[in-house]
């Protein structure tokens, strides 16, 4: 507790943990919200750590070491001790309070430790802060992982990335329906596509995709739009390949739209079909004029690969 402030290195923190009868967590959070600790977290630290006693949940806040004084601790105790009387709720009497010093850690960067490059055929997906020596003929895709968008590790994305590296030819034009983070579009450009159009209803998709393309040196080949199939114009047609890593009910509803945008013989990768929806999705793809050559199943997800029938 409040020793001399370190001049370098990360700040030390004290965790303040209260076991709170269910229902009263917000009130306790409010009582803890002193100047030094306005943010709280509910529940245990992580899966695998000790759960709160039956009928309670943890409310935890944190005090920077240089603000952790005997006076502040006494104020916190007093506020908690006053809750039973101020609310009239006897179950708030004698709340279990614990102060625990945490080891110093730079939380802005320490989360990165668990992320390592991973290889997928001739592609290596590498966090930008990691040094990585590519193998001969291996292409690097720099991707900041762990965010709101995908990290490339979802089974359906992996399947599409494998198809991209096998199917994309230099100079190809590729359509990416439901482009999300833009990872498949960027991969297609890295493998030689000269024009990739991605679109997604998520308003953040175009911004992420554009940044990802820029970070990987393929901004000239990639463009992104926000919206559904309505954002496509008459000129967006005759593609050599089409990707749709998307919900299978969207594939079912728009298989005809996808077929209308590609030339005869164009390859496709339609991903994200759960087991219970296989028959319906297969029939819709076939009915729209695509020939399914392969089905790649991993866990409960299936990816369809094939070509557009003339």
């Amino acid at each position, binding site marked *: 507790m409040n020793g001399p402030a370190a001049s370098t290195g990360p700040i030390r923190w004290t965790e303040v943990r209260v076991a709170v009868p269910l229902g009263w967590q917000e009130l306790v959070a409010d009582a803890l919200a002193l100047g030094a600790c306005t943010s709280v977290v509910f529940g245990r630290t992580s899966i695998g750590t000790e759960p709160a006693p039956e009928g309670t949940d943890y409310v935890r806040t944190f005090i920077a070491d240089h603000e952790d004084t005997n006076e502040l601790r006494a104020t916190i105790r007093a506020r908690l001790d006053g809750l039973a009387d101020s609310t009239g709720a006897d179950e708030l009497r004698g709340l279990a309070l614990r102060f625990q010093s945490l080891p110093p850690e730079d939380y802005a960067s320490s989360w990165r430790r668990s992320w390592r490059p991973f290889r997928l055929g001739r592609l290596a997906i590498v966090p930008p802060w990691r040094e990585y020596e590519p193998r001969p003929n291996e292409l690097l895709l720099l991707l900041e992982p*762990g965010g709101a968008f995908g990290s490339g590790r979802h089974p359906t994305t992996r399947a599409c990335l494998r198809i991209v590296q096998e199917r994309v030819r230099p100079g190809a034009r590729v359509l990416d329906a439901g482009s999300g983070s833009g990872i498949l579009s960027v991969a297609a450009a890295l493998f030689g596509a000269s024009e990739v159009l991605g679109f997604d209803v998520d308003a953040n998709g175009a911004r992420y995709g554009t940044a990802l393309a820029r970070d990987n040196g393929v901004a000239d080949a990639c463009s992104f739009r926000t919206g559904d199939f309505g954002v496509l114009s008459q000129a967006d047609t005759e593609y050599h390949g089409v990707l749709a890593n998307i919900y299978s009910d969207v594939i079912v509803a728009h298989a005809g739209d996808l077929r209308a945008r590609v030339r005869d013989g164009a390859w496709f990768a339609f991903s994200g079909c759960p087991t219970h929806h296989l028959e319906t999705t297969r029939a819709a793809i076939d009915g729209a004029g695509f020939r399914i050559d392969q089905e790649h199943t991993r866990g409960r997800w299936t990816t369809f690969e094939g070509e557009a029938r003339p």
Partner: protein
Amino acid sequence: MAKELTTKIKLQCPAGQATPAPPVGPALGAHGLNISDFVKQFNDRTRDQMGMIIPVEISVYKDRTFDFILKSPPAAVLLKKAAGVEKGAGEVGTQIVGSVTRAQVEEIANIKMNDLNARDLDHACRIIEGTARSSGITVEGAEG
């Protein structure tokens, strides 16, 4: 794409002012989530509510991606709004700053029902009444 949920993290942070410091850092870092991405998105989405404490529920998926929803404001904030007061009592239980009706208590209890983990509406109302008393807000028609 449907993703497999690993866990949910519940936090309260000041609008527009989340940082990687605790509790955000350790709570998200334990799951390998991109903390700066969360901080940026949270602050962008809450900037117009500066000065408020915002409850947020983060869904963590098996592939270590996340999304989050902003929850209804804490009960104390809703009570102050219903009572038409700017601030609650400075010291808990020492000062009366306003009042709400029983109907308003029930309305807030309904809004907060899921967030409170209350057993039923009566339990939720009791928690809201207790929160009101603690904030210096009386409930019209209530005893004490």
